[in-house]
């Protein structure tokens, strides 16, 4: 499928969302969100609990109905079949499910489900892609191992792998760092950056860790109460005043070497010390 992107500024626009509103029953969660995602760019989605990060991701995956305009690759989200969208956009949840005794190959092969025919029939290409991705993520020697025997970091790589075998142009992640220690957080974020650069995959990752998000993202989007409060480079978005208002704690900003994103931390003296 050839993709003729829409030139948006200097980069090709993959996703456009305009004035998106969505919610659950009577409760409005998104109150007019507009954003864009470009080819090969890594975007961090930050904001406090309840800001609408997960809801936004579900809406962008077409799992939740919404009003407003969303289009992937210039085509309205309502015009995409679920299967076609799954071949373009992959999703990594906070805690992906895998039956404990399932093998790595089972998990990876499931990522090709959007390409299967009736009776779950696979093409030769389905397996080629799985093997290539396994090679790329250093999982080749683990293919026959049950998920249960893997370390937390390996397991996370398998789930990233399941997304990649979908051969997506965009990857949406919902708090991928939650259950990882610092080393694995860094490894995962490096991997995602590499993938974005190598394969021109656009990444939108919801995160609670502002510093990790700013270090791995080209751009940050700050969401609060269902609207985009700020959208720009980490340097622009991590503005102490705005963050303090949004998160409800006093936040301090520490500058680093030029070219490196700043560090933001809550001011601990505010906790009564």
């Amino acid at each position, binding site marked *: 499928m050839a993709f003729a992107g829409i030139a948006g500024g200097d980069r090709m626009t993959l996703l456009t969302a305009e004035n998106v509103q969505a919610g659950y029953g009577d409760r409005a969660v998104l109150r007019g969100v507009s954003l864009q995602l470009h080819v090969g760019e890594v975007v961090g989605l930050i904001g406090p609990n309840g800001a609408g990060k997960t809801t936004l991701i579900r809406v962008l*995956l077409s799992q939740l109905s919404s009003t407003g305009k969303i289009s992937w690759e210039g085509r309205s989200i309502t015009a995409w079949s*679920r299967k076609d969208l799954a071949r373009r956009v992959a999703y990594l949840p906070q805690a992906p499910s895998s039956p404990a005794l399932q093998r790595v190959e089972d998990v990876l092969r*499931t990522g090709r489900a959007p390409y299967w025919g009736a009776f779950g029939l696979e093409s030769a290409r389905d397996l*080629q892609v799985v093997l290539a991705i396994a090679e790329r993520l250093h999982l*080749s020697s683990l293919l026959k191992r049950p998920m*249960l025997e893997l370390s937390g970091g390996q397991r996370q790589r398998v789930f990233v792998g399941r997304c990649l075998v979908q051969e997506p142009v965009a990857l949406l992640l919902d708090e991928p760092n939650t259950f990882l220690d610092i080393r694995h957080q860094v490894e995962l974020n490096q991997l995602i950056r590499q993938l974005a650069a190598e394969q021109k995959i656009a990444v939108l990752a919801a995160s609670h860790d502002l510093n990790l998000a700013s270090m791995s993202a080209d751009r940050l989007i700050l969401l609060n109460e269902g609207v985009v409060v700020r959208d720009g480079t980490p340097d622009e978005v991590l503005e102490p005043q705005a963050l303090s208002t949004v998160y409800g704690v006093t936040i301090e900003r520490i500058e680093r070497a030029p070219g490196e994103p700043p560090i933001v931390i809550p001011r601990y003296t505010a906790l009564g010390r």
Partner: protein
Amino acid sequence: MIEAAQKTYRAKQWNIRRLLLTVLLATVIWVIVAALCVLVGSTGAIGWPGDRAFATRLWFRSERVLIASLVGAGLGMAGVVYQAILRNPLADPYLLGASSGASLLSIAWLVSMFGSSSTILFALGQQTAAFIGAILSVAAVLFAASSRGRIEPVTLILVGVIVNAVNGSFFLLIYSLHPEVVAQGGAFTFLIGGLQSSLSARQEWLAAACVLGGGIALMRISGLLNVAMLQTAEAESLGLNVQRLRWTGLVIASLVTASVVSISGPIGFIGLVTPHLARMVFGYDQRRLLPIATAFGACLLALADAASRFLSQQTLMQTELPVGVLTSLIGGPFFLVLLWRSRESQAETA
């Protein structure tokens, strides 16, 4: 680089050839077991029938083995589908009320047959009553558990438990008001799960058609079952229409269950244990699991039926032991052992 990986890892592509080979393997397993079961006679003899009525007896035995296999196959495939869609390893084909509904309506049919000369009732037959009971019961569960056309596994299981309990108590109520139904022998045995030898060819062919058609339809969606085992959001992001699969899968599996329950009554544990057995040998891929579990179900029930035929003659009973009693008697402890073993193996590797 990829060639090197292929050397250490022989990937098996699930293509039409592998699908057919798997179905062939399943068939061969079943044919071997079924052939052994034919050797077990209802007189307690093991081996070819030795008397003049050889052909008749052999025919009679093979019919029994075929019916047992048919019922077991239906329960096996339905068990796999229920467990995958409800994402619950303890789910069995009776969870949504098929068996209790079948029992309830067929005891109602039995009771209303007394002192009634209604030809309509008689023509309807116990099996049809059971089939309608199973369908109505599952329909009630699906209707009560769905909201705006959406079904969630947890709600479904809870409503299923409730409807099963209500059906069960109505069954006992009718039974205590009409204790004379026990005297019905075979017809009563049906209610607690026993294969019948008095089925008409039409009933047998109907059930066989349901199981075969259902089996093909379920194989068609077997790949989707792999995806359905994930969380809903993950499954949807892999292109699966989760709600549509839940409906189609559960409706087809329930039809298969209803059709076999209507010729066998509620035979316990086959639908629950079979998928686990098949998984132990063949892993988690539902595309492979489905045909294998179907064969395993057929084998298990054919074996249990042969055992009950053998036991009934060798031990205390003159009358035949209902096979449902036997499957529950063996199936229960067997399932416990399975649970213990899987718990141990998880504890070791964790």
